């Protein structure tokens, strides 16, 4: 079993999908000979040729739009957007067409498209390269939004996303691309979509997070363990739909909830989780819910990105305060 990074896990899944299914097409800016700016598609054009692994002209809206046209013909485009800040030009196609094609044609035309993109900051990248915009996608019915946090889950979830008959947005935590390695068997086995994963069991506080913030959340949980505070950490994984049952189950025995995300707080996805708890599990709450999030500012240029991204300390303090609330 090869030890691979998260981005290598993605590369394995793409290679496997291209090999297994002739309808799968990988496309985007610089995904060909260059192998993508993060090397997620490295080596694939050599293996599958310049149409099945296709460099497109520089236009995200067109990339999303052509993917819809290809999908309507039964192909399975897997498009890459280089950085999440460049998602905006593609939103019209994603929201007005991709998410709706099946519904508006009553299933006559469908849209089995995957759109992959890096998510979040923390790698000292230039302006517009560090955004966390999941909520813009999650608010749209007809889309699934997935965000893996380990090489093995990246592999299995990407295969699931590609095989799913509907559009899936696949967010890849930039900070985790090469952070750690894991054994990944290229066995072609997909993981189930729509499910959160309990990364760490605990009794005192439920921590819910996703993407690269799982890293800081895990560190906080370990830090707090030394103080005798036991955190249950849930990796949301599926940002749309949200697996509320897993969260509520955990909350039922911890009674305390801290939500951690990198995106801005105002109207961020954390609000949906807190709101659902206020509706469905109010009486389980032993303390106010807390959100530890990016600030309601523009994502700063990288000199301050670490001040923006919730730190282990901020998370730990939030957990501590829910226990004294």
């Amino acid at each position, binding site marked *: 079993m090869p030890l691979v990074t998260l981005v290598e896990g993605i590369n394995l899944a793409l290679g496997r999908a291209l090999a297994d299914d002739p309808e799968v097409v990988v496309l985007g800016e610089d995904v060909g000979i260059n192998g993508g700016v993060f090397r997620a598609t490295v080596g694939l054009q050599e293996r599958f040729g310049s149409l099945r692994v296709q460099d497109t002209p520089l236009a995200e809206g067109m990339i999303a739009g052509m993917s819809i046209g290809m999908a309507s013909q*039964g192909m399975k485009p897997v498009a890459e957007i280089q950085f999440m800040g460049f998602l905006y030009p593609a939103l019209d196609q994603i929201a007005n067409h991709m998410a709706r094609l099946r519904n508006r044609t009553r299933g006559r035309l469908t849209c089995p498209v995957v759109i992959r993109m890096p998510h979040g900051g923390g790698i000292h990248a230039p302006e517009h390269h560090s955004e966390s915009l999941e909520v813009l996608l999650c608010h749209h019915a007809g889309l699934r939004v997935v965000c893996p946090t380990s090489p093995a889950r990246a592999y299995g979830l990407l295969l699931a996303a590609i095989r799913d008959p509907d559009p899936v947005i696949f967010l890849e935590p930039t900070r985790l691309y090469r952070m750690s390695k894991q054994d990944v068997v290229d066995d072609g086995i997909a993981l189930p979509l729509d499910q959160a994963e309990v990364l760490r069991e605990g009794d005192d506080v439920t921590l819910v997070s996703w993407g690269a913030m799982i890293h800081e959340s895990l560190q906080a949980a370990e830090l707090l363990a030394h103080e005798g505070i036991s955190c249950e950490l849930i990796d949301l994984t599926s940002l749309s739909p949200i697996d509320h049952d897993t969260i509520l189950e955990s909350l039922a025995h911890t009674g305390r909830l801290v939500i951690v995300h990198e995106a801005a707080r105002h109207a961020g996805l954390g609000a949906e989780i807190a709101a659902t708890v206020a509706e469905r599990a109010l009486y389980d709450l032993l303390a106010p819910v807390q959100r530890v999030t990016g600030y309601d500012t523009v994502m700063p240029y990288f000199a301050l990105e670490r001040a923006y991204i919730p730190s282990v300390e901020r998370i730990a303090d939030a957990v501590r305060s829910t226990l004294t609330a």
Partner: protein
Amino acid sequence: MKTVAEFAIDSEQLLDGAGRATGKLPAFAAHRGQMLAMYRMMVLCRLFDTKAINLQRTGRLGTYAPCTGNEATHVAVGAAMRPEDVLCPVYREYGTQLWRGVTLTEILTYWAGDERGTDFAVPREDFPWCVPIGSQCPHAAGVAMAFKMRRQPRCAVAYIGDGGTSQGAFHEAVNLAGAQQLPVVFVVVNNGWAISVPAAAQTAAQTFAQKGLGNGVPGVQVDGNDVIGVRQVMEDALARARCGDGPMVVEALTYRLSDHTTADDASRYRPAAELEAAWKLEPLLRTRAFIESQGWWDEAGETALRAGCATQIDDAVHGYQNRTPVGTDHMFEHLFAHPPAQLAEQRDTARRYGAGDPRH
């Protein structure tokens, strides 16, 4: 300075405003059946427009986008395409859609705010109407990419209006089509207006046929009220694309004789004289003049045709008005192949409160 690139835009007209041949006509023009079929479809579109507008005015249909004035372009494009080709329409090109097998009932159902209208029984692979202006163009390019990758001798056709060419999505799609030499034809229906904005205010371009030149895609202009010219130009463009010689932009020069939609009042902005002049060039009269000059048509045929169209339209309206009403489940049924569990709960809530009062 040395010249490194040169371009020309040619314009075609095979039938003049009076329905006289301007020169040698293509073979199909000598084919009675084909010419009458096109004329009949043009008349059907014109009469359907009147009916649909009337339904809207009497509260039996939602907002409707008429096609009056553009019938020759729409029908000729349909006649030039093959059934296995794929159409990405905008919202008023009924002539092309009807030719390809979309039904009048489906059209009415769509404008009644009922998704079932887009579940075309016949052209199963055609895209539905596309309201977000310009966004259909990349779809056509993507469809054409699928044809290219599968080595299928098929073409995609995207419609776009004169106003629509101002959207970046159009240029992005044309550029992709050029870069990959895709089998797609972009038909710019220049009907003079984008709601209240005249084509001349929309762009500094002297023609819309040149809209692809910047992206390396050739263009040609044709009199959009000349059903023979449009069909010929489209057949050439499609033949070219089909054999791998790449995309084209075709500008059909016509005129929107109607309001933009039933929600619009063109008298607010459109000079009456311009409209009057445009009526003199409208496509039905000249087509009829041509088929009469060939001895293929007469008043009796016209009367019979109009009667036949009326029945066909009444049947369609009848079928439309008697369709089963949609229930609230309709909102949930086709969102996903595998709906997330949560949706069931919302579906049940919707059932509890019912469908409100769908006005139409």
